């Protein structure tokens, strides 16, 4: 329900935003906390409080306006040259004030107290809450409008939408919707449930996310449940560290071990060796590289129609 109304709200927002631009001529957008932000001139000094925001801003061609990022912002490589003003889940108010931003782009998961603190100091904060691929595309447009780069945003969104449509068209004619699971195979197994970006991506890639059946966004599940789910494909974003080995080699040795392990060995994904590694930075960051993850997962699910 929440997602549905969220999407409806976003469409409404998009239309009203465009109307506003036309009427006022200012740069104006509403963030996901319900705040309306407005600029007369495009903001020149930007701070990103999440790796996905950094990727979105770079994709919008605004990389050289960034004056502050988080210590996890590692893409594109140029992001590493920007000053670090925030940590994994904490923001450093002093540092942010020091770089004197016109606009801070935050994300759900950032420390709300910290965001309030920034606003109290008169710094404008635009908070994003991106749960689906569509919302990511809309975020591109909203950020573009707010920063005065609407044309770049339109083009970027069009390109990404085109790649998504390409996947959609290729899987449209296929009958198979393989069962797919995200997660690992340690003692503690948890997976991606409803309302996660992974769930949305699996659906767009032409698969059925088995984790949807469980309660919670990141539910812990037992092996009995996984055996009953019979996943045909397993995608993991975490791999054991192994020096000098490619992810494919690590996966191969793990699959060989799982074939000998009680419970795991009966899973179709194990028997058919359809366990894959997908870059966590693609799949878990609500940024433009979600589309890379989508194309990769679609090709894993439907190797005949989409495989390279």
């Amino acid at each position, binding site marked *: 329900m929440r997602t549905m109304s969220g999407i409806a709200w976003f469409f409404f927002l998009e239309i009203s935003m465009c109307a506003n631009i036309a009427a006022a001529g200012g740069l104006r957008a509403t963030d996901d906390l319900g705040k309306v932000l407005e600029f007369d001139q495009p903001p020149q000094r930007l701070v990103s409080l999440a790796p996905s925001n950094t990727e979105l801003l770079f994709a919008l061609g605004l990389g050289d306006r960034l004056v502050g990022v988080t210590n996890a912002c590692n893409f594109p490589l140029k992001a590493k040259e920007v000053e670090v003003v925030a940590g994994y889940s904490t923001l450093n108010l002093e540092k942010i004030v020091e770089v004197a931003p016109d606009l801070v782009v935050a994300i759900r998961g950032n420390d709300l107290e910290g965001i309030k603190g920034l606003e109290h100091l008169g710094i404008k904060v635009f908070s994003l809450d991106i749960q689906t691929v569509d919302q990511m595309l809309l975020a591109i447009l909203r950020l573009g409008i707010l920063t005065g780069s609407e044309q770049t945003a339109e083009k970027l969104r069009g390109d990404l939408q085109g790649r998504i449509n390409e996947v959609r068209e290729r899987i449209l004619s296929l009958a198979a919707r393989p069962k797919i699971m995200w997660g690992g195979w340690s003692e503690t197994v948890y997976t991606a449930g409803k309302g996660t970006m992974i769930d949305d991506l699996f659906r767009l890639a032409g698969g059925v996310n088995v984790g949807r059946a469980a*309660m919670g966004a990141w539910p812990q*599940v*037992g092996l*009995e449940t996984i055996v009953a789910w019979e996943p045909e494909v397993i995608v993991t974003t975490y791999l*054991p560290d192994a020096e000098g080995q490619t992810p494919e080699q690590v996966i191969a040795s793990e699959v060989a*071990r799982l074939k000998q392990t*009680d419970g795991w060995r009966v899973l179709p994904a194990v028997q058919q060796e359809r366990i894959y590694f997908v870059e966590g930075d693609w799949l878990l960051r609500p940024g433009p590289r979600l589309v890379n993850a989508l194309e990769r997962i679609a090709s894993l699910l439907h190797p005949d129609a989409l495989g390279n």
Partner: protein
Amino acid sequence: MKRLADLKFSLPLLGGLLFVAMVLALGAGPVTIPPGEVLAIFKAGLGWGEMPLNNHFVIVWDLRLPRVLLAVLVGASLALSGTVMQGFFQNPMADPYIIGVSSGAALGATIAMYSGIEFWLWGISAVSVFAFIGALIVTFLVYTISMRGGNLPITMVLLTGIAIGALAAALTSFLLITSERDLYRILYWLMGSLASRRWDHVQTILPYAVIGLIVLQFFARDLNLILQGEENAQYLGVDVERVKRTLLVLAALLAAAAVAVSGIIGFVGLVVPHVMRLLVGPDHRKLFPTSVLGGAILLVGADVLARTLIAPTEIPIGIITSVLGCPFFLYLLSRKSTSL
């Protein structure tokens, strides 16, 4: 209630309850399997019947059975370890984790997950191995630091345990906040669970559990005497310091092995000894065997709820043990007019 104090009555009663709980636990899970089929699978597993072709055999024989046995071993180990610790420290707030087993295990497990170390030893993950080693290292530190001229003063052990436990907890927290890896995995592990455990885990804990659970029974009388006064016990021929060392080492080992295979499960080791004390009295010769059975019953029951209540999502079992144990414990306390 009075009759419960008689082991001839209480042991068969608790044993019967445990058996019933185990049978029910084998029949319950996120996948519905009728009792008749469970029975047929059992026959097949023992070689008396035809193997079914579906995955139900795997579920009952390879997954549920080891999980139920693991619940028995972990529950029994934690409860007996808690009974020993409460007796040893003469403190009603003592539990198996009081000398740093849980904080050491948490630190070990977090180090393994933080640094991405993965290997498999007898089917057990690096996380379990590190948890076990962490628990033993912290316990060993507490033990050696609190040793005073060959003796083990109880207050020293207690305070050293608290101090080193706090240090290990601080290091764990630091790793957690700086980790960019799989935080959920660490959090779920820290909350304790028997989900996805297999025969490998039963085999791992079995030697420690069996040795600990059996050997400790022989020290019940000595612990009784020590509690009446260490000097007095010495006169009666008890090698007090040796008995104390043995009790501490075995209780810590039981808890460490339990934590290694199941994560940190709270409340069992604290409440089961108290419940048994209220039921059978303070004599450790009665407390030890009844705690073993009581802990096993509680954990088998809790695990059934953990995997069925909001199936297919698993609830961390520590949540269930506390929710189940708390009201029952308060009820028993309310029936007691004076102190424990």
